[in-house]
């Protein structure tokens, strides 16, 4: 479509900036209940900054190509806004509504200015819609990206969190595993355990899988590798927390665990470990 060198939109925005701003904020407060999450004052600052940047961008760039250099500051502002809203728990549509809610105030002013000329008005409305839609899509994309970043960070936090190695007794370590044992986490688990074996000089490590819902061949393989690596470092492993359903499933899968000592509960495994290290438990007899 033919694009004129200079759009009327830019004139309209310059001329009615204050009125558009008021209408726009009113629009948003009514639609999104944005006031619940960010104060009206903050919203006003953001809107005013956006309008100023929009005005500058419209004036310097007739093509309305929002990915061009003329729009870089506008994009930056929207990026900042999307990120902070993603963190505050806004949905993608609520975030995009920031830009989309500007349509009505702009259309109203355009109609006021060039309402007499239907062709010109339709043309301007189309141009405005194009620009605002592109900017809204841009916010949605950034919103999504920010969420992905948050998820990734949380996953990494979980890697660290969920693999504590605890010392139960002199030279006895326990590793209570919880959740899904995908390969990235298993790697961390293995490294932690081997590191702690070196640090404590432990001779027995109990790997407890009570909190692992599914033991398939990959999980079994990871366990066997961990046991083999610990053995190379001079520590024996006991796998505990084998529930009846897990035992039956392992047998059906055909996984060979007979080279490893296994126990139903962590308590059973601990008793074995104490015996192996020469310690005994008994009730104190009364003198």
């Amino acid at each position, binding site marked *: 479509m033919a694009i004129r060198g200079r759009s009327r939109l830019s004139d309209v925005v310059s001329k009615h900036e204050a009125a558009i701003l008021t209408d726009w904020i009113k629009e948003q407060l009514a639609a999104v209940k944005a006031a619940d999450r960010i104060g009206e004052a903050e919203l006003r600052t953001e809107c005013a900054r956006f309008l100023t940047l929009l005005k500058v961008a419209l004036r310097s760039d007739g093509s309305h190509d929002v990915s061009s250099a003329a729009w870089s500051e506008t994009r930056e502002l929207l990026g900042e806004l999307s990120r902070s809203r993603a963190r505050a728990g806004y949905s993608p549509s609520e975030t995009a509504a920031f830009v989309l809610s500007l349509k009505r105030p702009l259309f109203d002013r355009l109609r006021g200015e060039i309402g007499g000329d239907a062709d010109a008005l339709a043309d301007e409305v189309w141009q405005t819609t194009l620009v605002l839609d592109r900017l809204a899509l841009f916010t949605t994309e950034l919103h999504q990206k920010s969420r992905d970043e948050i998820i990734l960070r949380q996953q990494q936090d979980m890697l660290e969190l969920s693999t504590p190695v605890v010392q139960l007794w002199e030279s006895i370590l326990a590793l209570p595993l919880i959740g899904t044992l995908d*390969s990235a986490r298993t790697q961390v688990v293995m490294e932690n355990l081997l590191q702690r074996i070196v640090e404590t000089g432990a001779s027995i490590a109990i790997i407890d899988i009570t909190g692992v819902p*599914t033991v398939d061949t990959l999980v079994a393989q990871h366990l066997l590798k961990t046991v083999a690596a610990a053995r190379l470092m001079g520590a024996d492993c006991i796998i505990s927390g084998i529930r*009846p359903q897990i035992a039956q499933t392992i047998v059906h*899968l055909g996984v060979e665990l007979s080279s490893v000592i296994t126990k139903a509960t962590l308590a059973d495994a601990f008793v074995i470990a104490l015996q192996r290290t020469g310690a005994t438990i008994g009730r104190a007899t009364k003198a």
Partner: protein
Amino acid sequence: MPDDETLPVRSSNDIVVVRQVVRMRAVEIGFNLVEQTKIVTAASELARNTIDHGGGGSARLQSLRNGGRAGLRLTFEDKGPGIPDIELALKDGYTTGGGLGLGLSGARRLSNEFEIQSRPGEGTRVTITRWK
């Protein structure tokens, strides 16, 4: 929950989702804990094969009612390179991916019905059914 749904199997996160949905289904059907664990484990093996060997695909979950019997049917499908020798692939300990070589054969032993269709160059479809 619909009786018939298809889930994507493209990343290791999808395997976790498949396991969770299969478990939910199994509970809904009334499988006991051992039956639940078996079908979930089989699903985990097949989903991982779909990704590792088939380059990703889909998992279809169907809740079945056949007279008085209830069951769960899972179909894993990919458009990967296919399996040239199915008999060999089903042999315990045979692996091309560095695993234990027990996934496919184990999944067969964990289910009541097992069907595999594969053509080199066209992909693989594995269907398992477990009855209550």
